[in-house]
């Protein structure tokens, strides 16, 4: 293969082997090809291996823990505080911590449900396919 790459982001591609330059295959319409190139240029490349729901659920768990830790620290801080200003400051931090935890829980629930529903619909499709095939087979046998 005659491919050379000058870095990950900017590959220089040379055709490998015989291109359809042998004249056998008709060239794709240039309009469609240009449209395809435009669509490809718009693609967002994530870098691979990213599962948005799993990532979202992990972030949710992380935020919940961080929020809880912030709230606990604020509680201890308020306990040892000698004046109202410090207590107020700790209260604000506690509210922020609880808020972060709530956001984390919401993210975890949302992404977990999405993952579950995705698997559920795939299972449903496969089950329905098997059922239909069984019914068709039974009808043909009759």
């Amino acid at each position, binding site marked *: *293969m005659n*491919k050379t*790459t000058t870095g*990950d*982001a900017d*590959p220089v*591609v*040379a*055709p*490998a*082997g*015989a*291109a*359809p*330059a*042998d004249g*056998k*295959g*008709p*060239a*794709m*319409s240039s309009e*469609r*090809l240009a*449209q*395809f*190139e435009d*669509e*490809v*240029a*718009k*693609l*967002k*490349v*994530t*870098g*691979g*291996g*990213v599962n948005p729901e799993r990532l979202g659920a992990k972030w949710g768990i992380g935020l919940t823990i961080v929020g809880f830790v912030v709230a606990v620290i604020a509680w201890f801080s308020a306990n040892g505080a000698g004046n109202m200003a410090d207590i107020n400051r700790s209260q604000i931090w506690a509210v922020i911590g609880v808020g972060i935890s709530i956001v984390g829980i919401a993210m975890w629930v949302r992404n977990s449900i999405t993952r579950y529903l995705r698997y559920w619909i795939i299972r449903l*499709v496969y089950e*329905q*396919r098997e*059922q*239909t*095939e069984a*019914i*068709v087979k039974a*009808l043909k046998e009759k």
Partner: protein
Amino acid sequence: MTVPVLELSAIRAGYGRIDVLHGIDIALHGGEVFALLGPNGAGKSTTLAVACGAIVPSSGSLFLCGRDVTGCATDAVARAGVCLIPEGRGIFPNLTVGENLRMATFTGARYRDVVDRAFTQFPRLGERRRQTAGTLSGGEQQMLAMARALATDPAVLLIDELSMGLAPIIVEELYEHVRSIAASGLSILIVEQFAHEILGIADRAGIMLHGRLMHSGPPSSIADELAGAYLGGER
């Protein structure tokens, strides 16, 4: 010198920690038909899964029109114009033919246009518009899968084992359709176990064995290598 519309470069990929592909290089040019042949378990379907973005390679890159799109979401790659007809047809058996075609409107195409195009290319589907897809014959189901794919106006078509489980006469009819699709200038990467029909259509072909592309070139050169590859493994 043209940039391939789809290119797999040094692809290693598999399922979990087990690699099935061990460094695959394939370049598909505009308007070209590339036939990927090989016995069961050679990694042909996995290659297509990488090409459509369904499997992210553990190393190597997927290029579309020269742009590295490795790791792009599968639906984004499909919307861009890379369409897979999976092994086993990939239709919704409990939906009617019309409802299956409606599923092809995800790209934003109008239902009427999708249906018109599908029924013009496959008139038999028009007669079975309200029939449940699962009750169609194997050949008609494959036609429906092709119609659904073509309705999205793809730039690159990936076809996995068109002939699977079908009678030779039906396979011949389906390959007539592939021939006319290829003549319209669509780029096609087609996977097959049985080479006879596809080598007559392909511009280039490759033989896969044990996750590696062992030979590639014009169909005439591949035909000589086929028997050895299937019967004797690596030579």
